[in-house]
């Protein structure tokens, strides 16, 4: 799959740690780690919504396409 998740870039910009983010969006550290390391297979809209609200930016900022 060519889709990559750039969540860590956005997290660095907002200077937020993994534990803080996971707490704020209400998912476990293990699941956040799966998401960050591109091991996940899908993302729920509710999770995406929570991430966007916490990091305060558009969903397109989190995803990239590998060529």
């Amino acid at each position, binding site marked *: 799959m060519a889709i990559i998740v750039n969540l860590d870039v956005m997290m660095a910009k907002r200077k937020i740690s993994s534990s803080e983010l996971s707490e704020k969006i209400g998912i476990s550290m293990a699941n956040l780690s*799966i998401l960050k390391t591109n091991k996940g297979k*899908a993302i729920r809209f509710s999770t995406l919504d929570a991430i966007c609200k916490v990091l305060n930016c558009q969903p397109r900022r989190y995803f990239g396409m590998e060529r």
Partner: protein
Amino acid sequence: MKVKGEKSLSTFIELCLKLLFVIGIIVVLGLPYILQKYSEWMHPQINYYPALAILYAAGVPALIIVYRFIKIFHTLGEGDPFKIENVQNLKIISICSLIIMIEFIIGIFFITSVFAVVIIGIFAVAWLGAYILSELLKEAIQYKEENELTI
């Protein structure tokens, strides 16, 4: 009643299967003696050496089946039966059932008994049933993984 996890039905069945496995080993090891006594007392229509060969060739796969069932029930006892090893276990059970079925189809010429026919029927069902269950379990594991990796 608890079906899986500690102190549940599956741990009880695992224990029963372990006991059965030990009894099975004893029976397979003592087969020449048992068969000899059986033919002396009952005078059945059997051919001693071919019958012995077939019973041995069926006994070993039967032990493998019991052993694999112990493994499956062990994972059930641990609480997570959706493992890829269980697909392999069920596949081996189906292959062993097929082997036993074929052996008894050949063996019916040497062991003239209605039980041979019953065994053929049972293991034909076990062969297909275990194969279908293994495929089902594989699909279920895929769904489970997909679900777990949706965040």
